[in-house]
């Protein structure tokens, strides 16, 4: 007998539980005065011995049950020497049920042809052969089938909107190679159109699966394929009331195609463009959709744009591409820069660079002296940046507090000097996220990456790009050791421990303390190449138009930046999946994690303002006809290693050793033991 998951045998150590319970438990006796003890004594001796026997029996039964459960989980295989040593075939049939197989080739689809071929192969197989059927896209697998069962299983398969995934199949093959009865022949047959992504997976196999024989059948259109697909789309931007989208259209067939590309979105006028493609040509077509004068960015932040080719060809599934366009509510960010003198020069330069970088949004920057700042100016801004901790307050701190809770962001830079009383007051009133207490003057370096990836108001993508500038090489002359309340998060640290960036969310906004100067007086950060990226990270995500389209194998994640802040504060959002089923999505920071898509189509949040995510086929999923026999043979040679059944060590030349799983027998034994245990226990109570 051998075990496939022997580590579960360690679970048998749990028998120590009942054994200890048996040893430690003491029965509780009720004391009763009595007279005729002489008639009890002999019976009592008998009773105690019987009771001990029963206790022991129950203990043994319980130990046996636990041990057998552990053995069951370890998946035992019984080895049995078969007489005559007749060789048996274990045929693993992998069938491609991906969407590309729905290509209509004449009157039938490639999939139907594949099923027919698979059935023929099964029928031709030896009578005693056992089959394992794998569906590569739906990842279904059924083992140990006889011929009739295998035929029935193959006929049950259907095309699913997904790509072939070989990882499970190859893993199952390796497992089968380990557990197959010695002397049996492990044969593999793969039937597929071998689309580029499938071939790529075969080529990238690191550990080839040992088999005795492998073969494949390339299922391809009988003549030159006629298939054009929309393989991608990219939002260029929103210029005025026009949405520009670049659409990639590919002719994957061998004949020239003339098609019409149609861009549609509910309540918007559709856009059309004629596309003429030579065989194997790929072209990018810019589609311009008129958003109309009445289009409201705040009411419809997410636009589902469907890009489709007309008329449909032989493979309709890749003729449509779904692109969700998230249009920001505002195109301008207003920054109020509060300064003492000219120390904000580098920061202003960085803002200017940021303003030029983004084509879709602008930065409106106003600069005001610290002693002249007013409540009105604060209320005008989206972001207020203090070049240092204020030395005096000419406005009410309550205004700052209201500004933050209303959705604004206040950024304080630190200097070596400052009014500690004012700072403490700001800290107490929740405007300052951390209170600088002691200045440490030593050279230190920020960490390469932020401590936390997800934080409302800060862009993870910008943080990743900022880390490319290697902040850990930029020296800073010193920093404040701060008192940090529980609600404040340290987003970025110095290498030796103190925080570089503290953020405290309050209401819909946040307050930020940057533990270094806005100029170069405290270090080289402001003069480094990372400064612009750092300022971009501080200000948060720019108001770009974003797009969300995913392939069926991906887990969709939407950025909520630019959507309503009230929506960002929710933890769970109801969503509708592609198949129309209702489910829930999780929000972490400003990211919305959607569940795994079910099919092709739209996933959208349910609520006043819906956010869409388009689910499409992987780009090269329907690139049929590109594979050749040489390519496939080469790829499969890398994926499989051929061995001979008789070459195994310690095996009789003609004997066949069958390994039979005995979990069913074990399960029944466990059930019987459980019943027996309950019977004995109840008898004990009687």
């Amino acid at each position, binding site marked *: 007998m051998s075990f496939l998951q022997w580590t579960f045998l360690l679970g048998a150590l749990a028998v120590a539980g009942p054994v200890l319970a048996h040893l430690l438990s003491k029965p509780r006796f009720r004391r009763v005065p009595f007279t005729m003890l002489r*008639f009890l004594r002999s019976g009592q001796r008998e009773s105690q011995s019987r009771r001990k026997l029963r206790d022991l029996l129950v203990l043994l039964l319980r130990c046996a049950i636990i041990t057998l459960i552990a053995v069951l989980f370890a998946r035992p295989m019984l080895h049995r020497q078969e007489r005559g040593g007749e060789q048996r075939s274990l045929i693993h049939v992998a069938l491609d049920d991906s969407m590309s197989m729905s290509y209509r080739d004449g009157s039938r689809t490639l999939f139907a042809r594949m099923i027919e071929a698979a059935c023929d192969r099964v029928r031709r197989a030896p009578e005693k052969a056992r089959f394992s059927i794998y569906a590569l896209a739906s990842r279904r697998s059924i083992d140990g089938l006889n011929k009739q069962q295998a035929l029935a299983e193959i006929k049950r398969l259907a095309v699913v909107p997904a790509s072939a995934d070989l990882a499970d199949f190859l893993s199952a093959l390796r497992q089968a190679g380990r557990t197959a009865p010695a002397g049996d022949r492990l044969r593999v047959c793969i039937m597929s159109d071998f689309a580029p992504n499938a071939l790529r997976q075969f080529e990238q196999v690191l550990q080839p699966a040992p088999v005795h024989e492998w073969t494949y059948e390339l299922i391809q259109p009988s003549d030159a394929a006629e298939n054009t697909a929309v393989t991608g789309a990219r939002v260029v931007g929103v210029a005025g009331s026009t949405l520009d989208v670049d659409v990639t259209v590919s002719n994957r067939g061998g004949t020239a195609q003339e098609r019409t590309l149609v861009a549609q979105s509910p309540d918007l006028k559709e856009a059309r463009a004629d596309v003429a493609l030579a065989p194997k040509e790929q072209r990018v077509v810019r589609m311009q959709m008129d958003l109309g004068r009445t289009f409201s960015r705040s009411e419809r932040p997410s636009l589902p744009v469907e890009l489709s080719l007309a008329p449909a060809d032989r493979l309709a599934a890749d003729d449509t591409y779904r692109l969700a366009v998230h249009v920001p509510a505002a195109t301008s960010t207003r920054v109020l820069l509060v300064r003492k003198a000219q120390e904000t020069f580098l920061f202003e330069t960085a803002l200017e660079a940021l303003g030029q970088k983004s084509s879709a949004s602008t930065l409106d920057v106003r600069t005001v002296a610290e002693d002249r700042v007013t409540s009105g100016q604060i209320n005008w801004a989206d972001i207020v940046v203090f070049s240092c901790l204020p030395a005096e307050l000419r406005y009410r701190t309550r205004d700052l507090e209201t500004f933050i809770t209303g959705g604004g962001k206040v950024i304080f830079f630190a200097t070596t000097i400052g009014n500690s009383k004012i700072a403490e007051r700001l800290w107490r009133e929740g405007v300052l996220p951390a209170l600088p207490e002691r200045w440490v003057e030593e050279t230190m370096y920020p960490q390469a990456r932020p401590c936390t990836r997800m934080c409302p108001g800060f862009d993870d993508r910008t943080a990743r790009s900022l880390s490319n500038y290697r902040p850990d090489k930029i020296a800073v002359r010193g920093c404040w050791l701060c008192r940090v309340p529980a609600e404040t998060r340290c987003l970025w640290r110095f290498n030796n421990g103190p925080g570089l960036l503290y953020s405290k969310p309050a209401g819909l906004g946040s307050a930020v303390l940057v533990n270094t100067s806005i100029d170069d007086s405290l270090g080289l950060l402001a003069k480094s190449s990372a400064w612009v990226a750092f300022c971009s990270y501080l200000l948060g995500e720019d108001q770009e138009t974003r797009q969300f389209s995913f392939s069926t194998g991906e887990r969709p994640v939407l950025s909520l930046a630019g959507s309503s802040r009230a929506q960002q504060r929710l933890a769970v959002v109801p969503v509708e999946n592609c198949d129309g089923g209702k489910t829930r999505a999780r929000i972490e920071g400003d990211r919305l994690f959607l569940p795994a898509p079910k099919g092709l189509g739209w996933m959208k949040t349910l609520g006043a303002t819906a956010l869409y995510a388009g689910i499409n086929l992987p780009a090269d999923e329907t690139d049929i006809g590109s594979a050749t026999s040489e390519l496939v043979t080469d790829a499969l040679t890398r994926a499989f290693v051929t061995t001979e059944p008789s070459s195994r060590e310690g095996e009789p030349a003609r004997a066949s050793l069958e390994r039979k799983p005995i979990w069913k027998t074990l399960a029944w034994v466990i059930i019987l033991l459980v019943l027996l245990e309950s019977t004995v226990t109840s008898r004990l109570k009687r």
Partner: protein
Amino acid sequence: MAGTTRDYLDPIFLSKLANMELVARCAVEGFFSGLHPSPFQGFSVEYSDHREYYPGDEVKFVDWKIFARTDRLCIKRFHQETNTCVYILLDVSKSMAFAGGQAVRKVDYASFLAAALSYLMLKQGDSTALVQFAERIRTQIPPASKRTHLNAILTALQRSSVGGRTNLAGVLHTVAETTKRRGLIILISDLLDDQGDISRGLAHLKFLKHDVIVFHVLDHQELELDYEGLIEFEDMESKDKVRAFPQSIRSGYQQRVGEFLDDVRKTLGKNDIDYCQLDTSEPLDRALIAYLVKRRRLM
């Protein structure tokens, strides 16, 4: 004691007993007339017949009226009926304090029985004695036939308290040696002593021509062992402890108790001793009446 003196003389209960006649199997000598037939003739108050006078007969028995009428000397003979002396031996050892479930203590049950029997005997004019014992005789009320003697017995019953171990055989030998007159010995006990010793003690009494009746008082739980769960049984006299699981030993226990009762019955039957097993869960009057009916049938 659970009740007062009046409790033992409950009129309904007594009215049931009053209709019954307890007839001694053997005639014993007595001082008063009663229902018991006497083997002794000549000293009596009831006329039997006449016979001719022979020289040597006492002159005081000559019927002078017949001599005046017939001129013949005749002696008057009497058929005498006497009372019997009843000794009630009541076991008040600690084991008699047992009460299982809702039943009364065995000693209470036995006391009710002793009181009822005393009343019955005294109503018949028999001399009644009460002996309460455990390892030895603790209380002894000598025999008397006065109606007022009942109060003495009932008071003794009322004041009795349980205690001590059973030494039934020793007590029976003591009673056999100290009783001056033959009579009826009523033993009320749970017989929880060595069975051979008990048998020998009772045989001693029978040897002295006593008529012996044994009322074997047992609790329902002693007969059935109707307990549940894990029990530590503690002996009321020896304080020995036995841990048992009654459910599993019940049948064996009942079998052994049955064998014990059969042995008792057989041993007493061999010695021509009447035996009546009483269950404290059963009504006392019903048990008594059942016994008395059986007794009359024997007579």
